[in-house]
């Protein structure tokens, strides 16, 4: 009989872990709280840097799950540590005994309304990166005007922000902002597009090229400085105040749309599940790896593994690579003589 492995979370990390474990000869059981697989990526339109359709990535991962037991709309009631493994009780009444459990619980987006000065949920034309992706996917959004003159992107909303309670860099927002800025420029060639940033953290393959192209080919303006406040003008537009730290001047720009790049926080469900087996979390709230250099996918508990953004903000390729690493670590763990 094949060894069962429980994977908690049906986003791209969980799907890739399950698919890889299946290929390694195990019997993965994928548990997802929502009614669909794919997590955040399933609601995204295109992915940087090649503008890959997100739906293709999710479909590709799904196609490899034939043979994986999938429970949708299922939560974790409790997990008990056994002498050599875990007893996982699901909300649908199913109890699973497995020698290894993989946490792939992902992240949640920072609630942009908490940055009150930006006016999300108050002003009609303030949206988030997720709202914009949904609109790109074809879901109508009345907040997005039909012919905007000026469009702004605010980086680091709820990231690297002590007051927001999250000092971590969310890593993907810089590139997402540039990607979305280019997409908006493609849709509205006459619009001026502005990115308000603290630092541009463009570390990945092709990212720098993407940034240069945004400036050279699309004429997107990059202003180094934080937005201080947003307010609404009498004609329903937005007045955005910021500091341009490079020119050393305050700026005020009327915008027709402002997109807030909400950062990544650890999924709060992850901490409660992890606490059932006494696995710890870092100060940032993300789950604590055994070692941040050589054991990122391993927890401090035997048989408990991590994949994807439950340990920190990650890009899609990083998440998939880490999920494969987690599957291999599970494989090595299970075949090790005990």
């Amino acid at each position, binding site marked *: 009989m094949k060894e069962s492995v429980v994977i908690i979370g049906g986003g791209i990390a969980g799907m890739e872990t399950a698919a890889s474990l299946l290929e390694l000869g195990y019997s993965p059981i994928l548990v997802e709280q929502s009614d669909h697989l794919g997590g955040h990526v399933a609601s995204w339109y295109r992915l940087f840097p090649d503008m890959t359709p997100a739906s293709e990535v999710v479909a590709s991962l799904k196609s490899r799950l034939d043979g994986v037991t999938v429970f949708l709309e299922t939560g974790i009631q409790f997990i008990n540590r056994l002498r050599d493994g875990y007893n996982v009780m699901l909300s649908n009444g199913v109890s699973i005994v497995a020698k290894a459990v993989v946490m792939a619980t992902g992240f949640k987006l920072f609630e942009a*309304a908490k940055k*009150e*000065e930006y006016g999300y*949920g*108050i*002003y*009609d034309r303030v949206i988030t990166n997720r709202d914009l992706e949904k609109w790109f996917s074809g879901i109508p959004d009345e907040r997005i005007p039909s012919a905007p003159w000026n469009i702004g992107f605010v980086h680091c909303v709820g990231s690297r922000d002590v007051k927001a309670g999250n000092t971590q860099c969310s890593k993907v927002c810089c590139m997402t902002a540039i990607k979305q800025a280019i997409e908006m420029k493609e849709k509205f060639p006459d619009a001026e597009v502005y990115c308000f940033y603290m630092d541009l953290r463009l570390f990945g393959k092709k990212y720098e090229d993407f940034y240069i192209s945004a400036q050279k080919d699309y004429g997107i303006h990059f202003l180094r400085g934080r937005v201080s*406040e947003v*307010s*609404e*003008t*009498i004609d329903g537009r937005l*007045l955005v105040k910021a500091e341009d730290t490079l020119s050393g001047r305050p700026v005020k720009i009327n915008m027709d749309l402002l997109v807030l790049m909400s950062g990544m926080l650890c999924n709060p469900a992850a901490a409660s599940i992890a606490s059932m087996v006494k696995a710890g979390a870092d100060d940032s709230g993300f789950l604590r790896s055994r070692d941040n250099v050589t054991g990122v996918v391993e927890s401090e508990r035997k048989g408990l593994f991590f994949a994807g953004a439950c340990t920190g903000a990650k890009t899609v390729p990083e998440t998939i690579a880490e999920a494969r690493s987690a599957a291999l670590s599970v494989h090595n763990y299970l075949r090790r003589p005990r």
Partner: protein
Amino acid sequence: MIYQGKQKIWSDYQKEIPDDHWFYVRSCIRQSFFPASEAHFVKIVRDLLGKDLYENPHHTTCGGIAYHSDTIPQETAMTIVARQFALMTEAGYKNLVTSCITSFGNYTEILETWREFPELEARIREHLWKACRREFDKPEYVAHASDVIYKLRNEIAERAKFRLVNHETGEPLRIVEHIGCHYSKMFPHKGVGGAEYPCVLSGMAESWGGKVIDYPERRHCCGFGFRQYMVKANRGYSVSNTHKKFESMEPFQPDVIITNCPGCPYFLDRWQYVIAEQTGKTYGKNGYGIPVLTYEELAGLVLGYDPWDLGLQIHQVAIEPLLDKMGVSYDPSKKYLGLDEKEIMKPGLPTVLKCC
């Protein structure tokens, strides 16, 4: 504008405000600028609504202005404040209500500092004992007087003789609300509605029939800013701040501005005269300015007190256009009469700003 979004934020910044038994401390400069405001706060809260409001004539300045002007160290301000607390304790009260926004900020900042650094509180207690042999309990609640009027706004609305409605058209009056910086910008959770979308004044205005305007420079300083005005060389900066606000609110055609700070009504009012003299521009209709009222003055008008008893004639900007819109009757011939209708001097008229 998504009104429900503001309501959601307001629900996060609700402040517990006891509705009775207050130790009231007056403001140094409001007693000079708008003395009738404090008098009418007492009239409304104690005499009309029957609340227990106690004042002690031995109350002094809180030291807030000196502290914010860098002329005394915070420890000195703390010892002054400790004495006010001692007066409150000796009178048997636990709820402190301040007339001045800077006092409110000063008391709040000191209590928060003591919470963080209890050894500092112990030292101040020692200073107070050495200075005047007094001891004190810290207040259980510190509120600004506008918090109290906000708390009582519906009781005031029930007794209203006039509403913030244009009595000819039935349209709600357009209200600009301006909170003092020291009300909630230092400690957002200490103010009703927080710092970004405060509702202490807008709550009053809406309860009394008005419509609040959210204009782009709503959060900007009135122009007082302590050093902007107190250092004479900086006064141009003070006017330019006020000018920025008026330019921003002008398209919304406000009928009245209400404030809860000693400095804000003074500067928003007086600088309209200066801007008119400097630029020839006025912001009300037909050469008038936009009237600027304290929240007690506005409550007084709503309750039907005589505008001249409320001291509205000492404002620079003429109040008559607002009175006409609300349908408040007044006798123009009594505008500048003193106590017992005694003839006193009339002010000179500006060349640009229409005042009567």
